[in-house]
């Protein structure tokens, strides 16, 4: 076998010489990778957004609660002020803090909302207005009035369906009744300050936000809370953050740390379904990319029968001929792959870094449900995915060259010369 560097030089020269053929072959791989990067990043972005929208409306990527709360959901299972102190300090740890984007504290209780014209069972959430406003985005779904202002202890923020059933509007009085921390049934006056609409009946009919301080005094709960909800920068951070917090907070068995999959199993089911669809589409996309590449490479190399005949006649061994084809394949795949990644990244970033807004695809009068899920998908780049796409195309490209390389070793020189160039 001649020196490998010679093979490489020959390979490069061949590729350059047959520029059109090389470009056509390469183009298949470049486009393939670029499209993979584009579609994966948007799909990944949509996936992240979907999860984020879901956890914002619930208990965040990670929820910190008293151990029995998730099962029983009563005020008896609450975090006392001392527990909250421990939580606060645990959240200060750098490994955790750098992933936490938002954090909100809530005191929740099931109760009854009554007005002069109706009574409806509700979930009352005592929240810190400043953090909750950013966390749940319910403040953005406002259709009337304001979100809870800092200086109004009797403010209440409720869904439009609930307001309609109670026949109330901004400024109306509503009485909330629930069992407090001592088991007594207690009432609290609130005034409707703002009304929201998400389009989700479960939210619009049952959720009421009031200031945390008001909830605490109403329910004689001192400095307690039922949930501390955390929003993280990416769903990938859920595991490490949950683990770190669990280590810090589990001693004493007073505090439980839940990942969103445990705290919101319905969301997890929905996300899994989404994942499933994703896998299927990804598989078909990969198949078509592979197909285009294989087809192109096979075609291009099998056209060169005569050329190989000449080369063999001039003294190259079978092995070297085959090796050369393989090397060409490797070089082409590698370069194309890298260019493709760069191209895909560039195009996606340039045109869609602010998100692919496909609200134009939807009809007029898109209902409020769309307001919960932003019709704007931001690309999410995952290094692992990028490398994976590159590797995939590389392997396909090289793999596709194997058969032609093998064929090249089997050429009968005399026969080959009969073929047209």
């Amino acid at each position, binding site marked *: 076998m001649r020196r490998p560097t010679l093979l490489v030089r020959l390979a490069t020269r061949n590729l350059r010489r047959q520029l059109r053929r090389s470009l056509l072959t390469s183009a298949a791989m470049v486009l393939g990778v670029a*499209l993979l990067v584009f579609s994966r990043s948007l799909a990944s972005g949509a996936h992240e957004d979907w999860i984020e929208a879901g956890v914002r409306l619930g208990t965040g990527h990670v929820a910190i609660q008293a151990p029995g709360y998730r099962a029983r959901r009563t005020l008896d299972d609450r975090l006392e002020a001392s527990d909250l102190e421990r939580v606060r300090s645990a959240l200060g740890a750098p490994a955790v803090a750098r992933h936490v984007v938002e954090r909100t504290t809530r005191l929740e209780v099931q109760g009854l909302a009554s007005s002069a014209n109706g009574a409806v069972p509700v979930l009352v959430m005592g929240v810190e207005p400043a953090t909750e406003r950013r966390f749940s985005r319910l403040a953005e779904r406002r259709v009337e009035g304001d979100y809870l202002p800092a200086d109004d202890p009797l403010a209440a923020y409720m869904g439009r369906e609930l307001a309609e059933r109670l026949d109330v509007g901004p400024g109306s009085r509503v009485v909330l009744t629930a069992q407090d921390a001592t088991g007594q049934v207690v009432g609290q006056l609130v005034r409707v300050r703002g009304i929201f609409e998400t389009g989700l009946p479960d939210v619009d009919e049952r959720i009421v936000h009031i200031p945390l301080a008001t909830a605490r005094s109403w329910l004689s709960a001192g400095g307690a809370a039922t949930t501390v909800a955390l929003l993280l920068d990416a769903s990938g951070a859920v595991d490490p953050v949950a683990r770190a917090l669990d280590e810090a907070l589990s001693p004493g068995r007073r505090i439980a740390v839940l990942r969103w999959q445990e705290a919101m199993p319905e969301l997890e089911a929905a996300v899994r379904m989404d994942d499933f669809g994703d896998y299927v*589409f990804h598989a078909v996309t990969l198949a*078509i990319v592979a197909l285009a590449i294989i*087809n192109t490479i*096979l075609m291009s190399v099998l056209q060169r029968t005569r050329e190989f005949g000449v080369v063999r006649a001039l003294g190259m061994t079978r092995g070297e001929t085959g090796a050369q084809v393989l090397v060409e394949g490797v070089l082409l795949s590698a370069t194309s792959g890298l260019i493709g990644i760069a191209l895909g990244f560039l195009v996606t970033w340039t045109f869609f870094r602010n998100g692919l807004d496909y609200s134009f*695809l939807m009809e007029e009068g898109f*209902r409020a449900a769309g307001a919960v899920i932003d019709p704007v998908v931001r690309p999410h780049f995952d290094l692992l995915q990028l490398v994976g796409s590159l590797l995939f195309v590389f392997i396909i490209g090289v793999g596709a060259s194997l058969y032609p390389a093998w064929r090249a070793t089997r050429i009968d020189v005399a026969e080959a010369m009969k073929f047209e160039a």
Partner: protein
Amino acid sequence: MTVVPAPWWRIGWRNVGRNRRRSLFTIGGLALAYCAVVLMTGLSRGMIAEMIGNGTGILSGQLQVHAVDYLPERSVHETVGGQDGTDVGALLATLEEDPAVEAAAPRVYGGGLVSAGDNTVATELIGIEPARERRVAAITRTGLEGRLPRSGENELWIGREMARQLAAGVGDEVVVVAPAADGSLGNDLFTVSGIFSSGLAELDARLAFLPIDALQRLIVLEPGRIHEVAMRVADPWRAPAAEARLAGRLESRFPDARVRAWTEFQPEMVDYAALFESVEWVIVLVVFVMAVFGVANTMLMATFERRREFALLLALGVTPSGILRSVLWEAVALGGVSLASGALLTFPLLAWWHRAPPDMSWLYGGFTMAGGLVRPVLRVEYPPGMMVVAALALFGTAVIAALVPAVRAGRVPPADTLQGR
């Protein structure tokens, strides 16, 4: 010299067979590309249909019939046919006659409570005909323990969360209390026949199912008085048309009945569908682009490699237009054969998966999606539009891509090409 109109199409056709390998590649590539695009679109539509089916199929069904004034207050007195009720059997038969309706189930609703020992839970009671309901509401398939209640018996089917709150299990006795239609307080003892776990907290905590006759007895409604008929339509997009047809059918015998499709009573599903459709649009586009590119690439390559052949023909006196025409017919022949093969490959696959969607739950191990409500299957719905569009697009691509090099070849003096420049 008189030019005999040469049968270019015959030459074109023969060229296909002449270079078998090249033709096979092209045919294979185009056929598979067609298959991928059509399959992808079919899968996408199938996913959306599955998603809507899941959302509407849990309990509400895709079509519903009520008395005109039943919604939105859902008064227990507003039964179909008014105070006198209706011929339920005849109504169900009429509804099931429609080709789109697969099954219809009658229901009675009542609000009340269920109590066991010291525990009481506010409940929505749904009276069902178990055999019919099994074919309509997917929630009937989420049984965890025990079984659905039997007609004629005082049996109750409750959610897991309710069972937990009541501390009741299968076989236990519970009290069901509901205000009756005559003003009295209906109450009776029931036995828990089974427990379901839909994975949806609201349903698991608030719903209790019992035989329709048992509920009618409890709340003093005659056997002919029902509140709702829920129907299952396999392809949710056929529901609106079915609504129109049924409205006409019911007018004479059941004048006060109103039919609604899910697009009216669960409008948020329409929005979700639009949302998913627009995301998948991106993915389908990616596959389409890659397919088109793959075909173009192949054709370009195939034709470029034949420059010598064209030059020879030109030297022998064939006009450039003659070459073009033979290439055109060749491309047409190739395209035709490819699409035929593609169709042969795709349609049976589509039909198979449409009838019997392959179950992909093996991908998910022990995880049950939403209590078994959601099945990860590879569902496809026929995409007739895309079948035509893809065929035209790919065919067109093949022809254009074949012609481009032929046009160019016609311009170069044959001597140059034959010399190898």
